[in-house]
């Protein structure tokens, strides 16, 4: 009779079941020849990953994975196969032997190495016992926000996050340079009789888009208190704008948010983030050291009852600093995703018109 140790519980069972589902979907992605099927399956893969992330106590990451995987990533991939080709060519099975052997060999070595890793959930593993523990214990004293993931992301590791935001901005610029900033000349106006077939979608979209934008702002500003933050909010806001473009036509969306506005907002976001760091340096601290964000004279003026808790030192600099940089991240992520979407969608329209002229 096998006795199960006490640590095997519902969480572990859920984890194993979800990982098996991931394996099945990954196998299907490898085998299918149709790219549309591969893209939809990749969306399913992301959704299952999001559920698995909740089981692993990571709601922030689950948020991000769900919106990015099922939203932006699918849109960008669909745009790409619209502009290229929808199916891969049949490949000779003999050509697959060498890659399969290499992958099997590397996989075998990695699995052998993975046997030496600590057990799942071990609280005394090197990953969980030192730096992670220090952040858990230090957040209440140093930063004072309940969401410790936001505290790590925005304050303890703020410089990393600035680098990531800059990478996202650079990727947006890269896509815009390669695919264009959206259609150059004015788009043909949508046909005046859109037909009654799409009325349900239009009405539902009109209801949903403001709600999605509102939800994005909620996620942004509650990132300190609960799961959320600038990255999730940026992607959700970009999803709302993309939904508008898909339902009402690219022309309407580009009239509302022209591409130069998107580009400027993206650079404004990075500017705000780096600007906060520079202001901290001007006031005497290090780069992105939020304790020095306000000069001491200003900080002494802020009454202690605003935050409602007079028992420990108010971390005004930390709260304000985190708020400002999360706004910067929101602006950059939203504007970059919108620029990328304009690049892919605008190319289609250009191509279509060029094809029509021939």
């Amino acid at each position, binding site marked *: 009779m096998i006795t199960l140790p006490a640590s095997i519980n519902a969480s572990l069972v859920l984890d194993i079941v979800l990982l098996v589902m991931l394996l099945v979907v990954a196998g299907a992605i490898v085998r299918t020849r149709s790219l549309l099927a591969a893209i939809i399956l990749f969306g399913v893969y992301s959704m299952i990953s999001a559920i698995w992330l909740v089981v692993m106590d990571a709601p922030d990451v689950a948020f991000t994975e769900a919106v990015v995987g099922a939203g932006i990533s699918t849109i960008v991939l669909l745009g790409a196969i619209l502009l290229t080709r929808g199916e891969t060519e049949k490949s000779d099975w003999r050509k697959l032997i060498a890659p399969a052997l290499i992958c099997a060999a590397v996989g075998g070595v990695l699995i052998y190495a993975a046997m030496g890793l600590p057990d799942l959930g071990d609280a005394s593993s090197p990953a969980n016992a030192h730096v992670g523990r220090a952040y858990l214990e230090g957040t209440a004293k140093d930063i004072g926000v309940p969401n410790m993931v936001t505290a790590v992301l925005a304050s303890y590791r703020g410089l990393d996050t600035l680098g990531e935001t800059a990478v996202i901005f650079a990727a947006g610029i890269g896509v815009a340079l390669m695919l264009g900033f959206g259609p150059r000349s004015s788009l043909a106006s949508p046909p005046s009789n859109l037909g009654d*077939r*799409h009325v*349900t*979608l239009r009405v*539902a979209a009109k*209801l*949903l888009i403001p*709600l999605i934008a509102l939800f994005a702002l909620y996620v942004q500003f509650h990132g300190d208190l609960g799961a959320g933050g600038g990255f999730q909010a940026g992607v959700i806001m970009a999803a709302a704008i993309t939904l508008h473009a898909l339902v009402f036509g690219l022309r309407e969306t580009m009239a509302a948010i022209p591409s130069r506005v998107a580009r400027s907002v993206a650079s404004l976001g990075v500017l705000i983030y780096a600007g906060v760091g520079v202001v901290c340096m001007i006031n005497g601290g290090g780069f992105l050291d939020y304790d020095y964000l306000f000069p001491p004279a200003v900080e002494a003026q802020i009454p202690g009852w605003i935050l409602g808790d007079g028992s420990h030192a108010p971390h005004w600099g930390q709260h304000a600093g985190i708020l400002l940089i999360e706004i910067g991240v929101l602006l950059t992520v939203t504007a970059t995703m919108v620029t990328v979407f304009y690049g892919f969608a605008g190319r289609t329209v250009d191509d279509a018109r060029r094809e029509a002229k021939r």
Partner: protein
Amino acid sequence: MADILAWAGGGFVIIGAALSLLGAIGVLKFPDVYTRIHAASITDTAGASMVLLGLCLIAGLSLTTLKLVFIWMFVMLTTPVSANALANAAFGSGHKPRIGAFQIMRTDERRKTPRGVDAP
């Protein structure tokens, strides 16, 4: 009282899961695009509603229940609309509904069918 609610909630969650499973089986077994859309959307709406109702019963009267009610309203708004959009797209790209007497095909019959407009 809380115990009964928790058990009833669990029962509803299991019913919801069973309905979602039925929806998945329907998508695989039904012969036509439109019937598959029907299977997926009907059982996802009903399955999700049952699961959310069960979770509301387990959570009792609290902020969580209010959030679950909002999620339910959102699901009620989006699932039928997306099914409608999908059916519109299928119609717009030329899939004609299969009318007339037919049975749910067995697997060997599916392979013999020529790849017509209903090909996946």
